[in-house]
């Protein structure tokens, strides 16, 4: 007994303490400790605060959308709301205005718009949401007489089409008639006769309209004899002939025709060459410009030379 007592007494302090659990011990359990540490981990915390609600939301939305009736109802609702907005008076287009086009082109454009409306099954008044302005513009621009067009819906419900028409710069004579062409070589329309547009120069020949730019430069270079010009003829899709009245021709080379024409104009200015009885001025070989005289002039020339030789 003594030994037991001494053993206990040596440990007197903790024994007394353990017998008196005065207050509840507020130690967290192992799991609550771990849970708190987990919740203090930034990544985990963010995933709980943001990731979990987001996941829940996605799940609920997915469950709702998995029902086809719900999907259809939502689509119908969206459609109704859309219609309600689209058919408001401020979005309705009631009239068409075309500016910058002459009567014929305007009529063509009006027909075009009508066809477009028929194609999508609408008629004035039409909601501006139903109009496909880019495609309309494309179709208007495709008209031969139209170079560019601006298609827009103006406030007040007007479909406004502003057209830039192609401006004819020359008349092109071809086998089937006389046409107007613009500076890009695009054909604009037919005219009944050359004399309808005497203000425009005439070009002819195969491939003439593809080189309209060069032709215009040549016409400009031939300005000193403008009143005598009949037209430019494309020869063999290769080079130009400048035809003056009285059948006089200036044959221009393939390369650098403008310089050659300038030379001719210089000769004409200096010696009044083109007023003389010359049938052809051949500039095809730049080193050796050649004149062909009319038969009568040839005779006069031969007589004169015989006289000189006598």
């Amino acid at each position, binding site marked *: 007994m003594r030994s037991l007592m001494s053993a206990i007494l040596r440990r007197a*302090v*903790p024994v007394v303490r353990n017998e008196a659990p*005065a*207050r509840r011990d507020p*130690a967290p359990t192992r799991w609550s400790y771990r849970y708190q*540490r987990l919740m*203090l981990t930034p990544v985990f915390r963010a995933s709980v605060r943001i990731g979990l609600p987001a996941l829940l939301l996605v799940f609920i939305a997915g469950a709702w959308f998995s029902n086809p009736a719900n999907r259809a109802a939502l689509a119908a609702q969206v459609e109704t709301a859309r219609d309600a907005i689209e058919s408001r008076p401020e979005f309705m287009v009631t009239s068409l205005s075309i500016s910058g086009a002459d009567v014929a082109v305007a009529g063509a454009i009006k027909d075009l718009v009508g066809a477009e409306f028929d194609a999508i099954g609408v008629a004035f008044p039409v909601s501006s949401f139903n109009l496909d302005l880019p495609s309309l513009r494309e179709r208007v621009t495709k008209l031969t007489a139209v170079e560019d067009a601006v298609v827009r819906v103006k406030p007040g419900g007007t479909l406004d089409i502003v057209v830039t028409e192609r401006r004819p710069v020359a008349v092109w004579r071809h086998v089937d008639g006389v046409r107007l062409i613009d500076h890009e070589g695009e054909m604009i329309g037919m005219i009944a006769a050359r004399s309808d547009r005497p203000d425009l120069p005439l070009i002819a020949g195969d491939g003439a309209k593809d080189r309209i730019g060069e032709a215009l430069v040549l016409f400009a270079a031939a300005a000193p004899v403008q009143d005598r010009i009949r037209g430019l003829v494309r020869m063999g899709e290769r080079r130009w002939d400048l035809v003056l009245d009285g059948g006089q021709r200036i044959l221009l080379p393939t390369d650098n025709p403008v310089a050659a024409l300038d030379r001719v104009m210089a000769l004409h200015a200096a010696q009044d060459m083109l007023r003389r009885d010359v049938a052809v001025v051949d500039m095809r070989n730049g080193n050796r410009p050649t004149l062909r005289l009319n038969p009568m002039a040839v005779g006069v020339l031969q007589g004169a030379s015989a006289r000189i030789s006598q």
Partner: protein
Amino acid sequence: MRDLYESQRAMRNMRQAAMQRGVVAILDVGTSKIACLVLRFDGPDRFRENDSVGSMAGQSSFRVIGAATTRSRGVRFGEVEAMQETERAIRTAVQAAQKMANVRVDHVIACLSGASPRSYGLDGETNVEGSVVTDADIGSVLAACDVPDYGHGREVLHAQPVNFALDHRTGMADPRGQIGNKLTADLHLLTVDATAVQNILHCIKRCDLELAGLASSAYVSGISSLVEDEQELGAACIDMGGGTTGISVFLRKHMIYADAVRMGGDHVTADISMGLSVPMPTAERIKTFYGGVVATGMDDREAIEIGGDTGDWEHDRRTVSRAELIGIMRPRVEEILEEVRLRLDAAGFEYLPSQQIVLTGGGSQIPGLDGLASKILGQQVRLGRPLRVQGLPQAATGPAFSGAVGLTLFAAHPQDEWWDFEIPAERYPARSFKRAVKWFKDNW
């Protein structure tokens, strides 16, 4: 020695990692309470160099963002006795501190108050390779210290170089870069019981925490409660804890001796409990409210209600005069102080240039203790409180927290230890290669 190096290095790396993450916890596992502080390291760039504020002894680099204290369970004499109980107590403290800091803590720096520390003074001597002392020379002089046989089952806790001497000059703090031939180093080695270390390690590991540092409680309370001149000129810090009273002696800002008396405030409480036959919590309450060590005439007339809940009116209405209480407490306090005196005498404390003694720890709050201590320990006695650190709550600024506060300073500014220097390469090939390099350097 190798495994000591490696384990301590691993711990230091862990501490570095904790600093990198910016959050580290301080855990002071004592006999009467467990304190946990959570530190946030802001890095050194908070104050620029030209600021007049300065780094404030390294304190500006950290801030206490969480603090919690809980009653300790299962710890006796500063050593873990009941593992589960201690683990629960640590969990309580850490959880509360984490909650206050609102941040998760993974690394913890702990201190050991008991585990019967033992101090050794070592010295080593080596010849300097080359003319200038380098890091490698310091490593080799530390390795040249002859380690005493500190016994089986003990572990080295601190091994701090405290003094370097180069040829005839001594008292150098940092001999690197100086020119000389013979380098001598003095090393202070502190060993503790390996089992106590293992137990506390296990407790911390069971709380999912990683140990990033371990220090002696006596040492860290010395850091926090001794002021600079005391550390420089020589002083002893007496940390009167619950189960142990730690002693650390400082000279030239280095700890040169540490010991622990296995008696503390809990023994005083136990004496009261036995003397007045009251339960321990009541005894503790009486001690903290009415305790003292110097009786005056007034104390005879002051009756203290002891209380009790046996139902026996006579027993439950007992009173005791304060003089009687002091009569119970004083012998035990005297015994503790005399034991401290013995330890200091054995360590040669009287040969220090200044013999300042600083009393700190929870037990130092007994009224009149400084008067009693000056009778036993010498005239230069003062009561110390820990340094103020940033963000420390008011409740944790008392002398009972000098260990915890000292650990924060220790975490921010660890002392160079033996294992911070590279152990010299002992293997022959490395040395012969070095010799070849040296030959080339000398002859070419």
